[in-house]
């Protein structure tokens, strides 16, 4: 196993005294846990070990964001890695008035959207999407498998709001911030996505048509 401290640089970063800069956090304005703040400050000073800890904490959540946009495990893994690299390189732009996770998810969503555009340009038709072996599905709850397929088949603009709402549990306003959309648009997409999924499940006979 590689020790992170191998990569630590000894050149400290000199911050610009900007309003809302992460280094103003000592004034009690930060909405960030102290431990996480320290990790970010160390990262800003070039401590890659500290950034490794941030990666460890957020990798699954960032992966969920990139997967929702790219629908492909391999591409989502690559985008997750790129997102952490991009976030580190732009860490000076992170503003304390925002939640760190929201900012990080925004970076991840942008990286994934760019990767999706690139994929569309380079490979047409797109990669087959995470098809499962039907024999494997025997062991999986049939309803869940059908819902997973229905989510995968959702049009691209709907998947990310669905994952951010149902998996990350983010409020609509924060989803809007991450995806750069007005809250109203997020709500319409959530409604539409849920209606599409439900229609698909009814069509497949997985659930009945009556709404309670």
């Amino acid at each position: 196993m590689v020790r992170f401290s191998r990569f630590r640089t000894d050149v400290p970063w000199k911050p610009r005294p900007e309003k809302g800069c992460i280094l103003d956090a000592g004034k009690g304005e930060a909405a960030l846990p102290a431990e996480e703040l320290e990790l970010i400050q160390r990262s800003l000073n070039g401590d890659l070990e500290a950034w490794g800890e941030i990666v460890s904490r957020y990798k699954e959540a960032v992966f969920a964001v990139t997967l929702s946009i790219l629908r492909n495990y391999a591409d989502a893994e690559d985008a997750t890695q790129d997102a952490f690299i991009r976030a580190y390189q732009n860490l000076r732009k992170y503003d304390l008035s925002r939640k760190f996770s929201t900012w990080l998810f925004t970076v991840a969503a942008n990286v994934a959207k760019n990767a999706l555009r690139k994929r569309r340009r380079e490979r047409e038709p797109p990669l087959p999407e995470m098809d499962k072996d039907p024999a494997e599905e025997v062991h999986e709850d049939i309803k869940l498998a059908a819902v997973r397929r229905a989510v995968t088949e959702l049009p691209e603009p709907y998947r990310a709001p669905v994952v951010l709402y149902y998996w990350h549990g983010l409020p609509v306003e924060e989803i809007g911030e991450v995806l750069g959309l007005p809250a109203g648009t997020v709500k319409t997409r959530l409604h539409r996505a849920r209606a599409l999924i439900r229609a698909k499940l009814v069509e497949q006979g997985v659930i009945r048509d009556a709404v309670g």
Partner: protein
Amino acid sequence: MRWDEVDELLRAALTKEVEEGAKGLAGLEERVIRELARRPVRRSFWERVREFLSRPTPRWALVGALAALLLGFALGRLTAPSPVPQWSPNLFVIAAPGAKSVAVVGDFSAWQPIPLSDPDGDGIWSASIPLPPGRYEYAFLVDGKWVGQDPLAEEYLRTFGEYVSVRYIGGGRANPSS
């Protein structure tokens, strides 16, 4: 099946989806660190902007032409008269003085926005949408902001942390105006 049951299924399915995929994230920390340690220092955004602006490019002309086209379209929309519809159960109407755009979204449109209009500029926006008898969930979008409680609705539901209005057309419930 109730909507909250659909919600639960969605949560469970997504948890499984991410769990399975996240197995490939083992060692990501080391890969990120290795990559960062290897990369040269990037030029700042402003340095790249300065370089971009210093190059003669036809893109600015394209942006200007597009802006002029949009302005012309907007002015045409503002000056074109349109008739005020008569009230009917299919009429969706909301007071939104000063709004730039108003739309209604609902299950009848697969939650796609249907624009409302305010031809006389009095702040009352409306659209008549022919709908067959049934129960309909909807909300208004006023300048992109969700307005879920229509005073003309017969009931409200709370979903995704916000209200949606419910209207019954052609029976089922009493008409709110009666």
